[in-house]
């Protein structure tokens, strides 16, 4: 399965080894790990809770992975996203893409993360000394995802 939602932590090394196993054509492995920070928007963050929309989350991520594999010449892609409770420094998400060469693997990995940030139904709630609050979506995430959109045709 290219997509997994789980509460337990992941071992990036083991996941990468499993993805590479038995495929000597792989020449590049690009990966990204998203981690819980101890501060956001100027406030200390002591704890974070991540919720999602079971069913839609898996579908949305599978669609993103399928689109990445269609756009770039890559071999395998894996997304592991955790939900539940987090402390600072806890791992949240892992994306791994394998391919023959680094360029396409890097691009596909970044694309998957940018689309995940704007299209996969996850929500973060963080606890700060001022109380609990839902994390606001960032315009910079929309702009990052926008980069991958095909240019609009200028047909009159």
């Amino acid at each position, binding site marked *: 399965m290219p997509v997994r939602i789980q509460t337990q932590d992941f071992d990036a090394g083991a996941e990468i080894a499993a993805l590479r196993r038995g495929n000597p054509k792989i020449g590049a492995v690009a990966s990204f790990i998203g981690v819980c920070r101890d501060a956001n928007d100027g406030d200390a963050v002591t704890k974070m809770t991540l*919720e999602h929309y079971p069913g839609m989350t898996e579908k949305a991520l599978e669609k993103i992975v399928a689109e990445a594999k269609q756009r770039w010449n890559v071999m395998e892609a894996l997304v592991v996203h955790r939900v539940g409770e987090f402390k600072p420094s806890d791992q949240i998400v892992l994306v791994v893409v394998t391919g023959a060469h680094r360029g396409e693997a890097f691009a596909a990995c970044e694309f998957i993360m940018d689309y995940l940030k704007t299209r996969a139904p996850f929500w973060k*709630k963080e606890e700060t000394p001022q109380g609990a609050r839902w994390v606001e979506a960032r315009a910079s995430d929309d702009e990052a995802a926008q980069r991958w959109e095909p240019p609009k045709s200028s047909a009159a």
Partner: protein
Amino acid sequence: MKVKVLYFAGLRERLGKSGEELDVSPAVTTVAGLRTLLMARGGAWQTALAQGKALRVAVNQELAQPTTPVKPGDEVAFFPPVTGG
């Protein structure tokens, strides 16, 4: 017509429920129509679903637009912009 409506994250908290089975008038044919119907409940429904609020909608677990049709048996979810990763 019966539809299943779900609410997530901050919206769920403001509305005080995570979902409900609704029997709505066949006059409701789109996401925008369903939103208007829910807003007519007033109070938190009126303010949390107000036009101009950053709100995302999915129909049958696919991101949808205000004009997306709503049919009997559909699952319609309302939620804030996503913040995963």
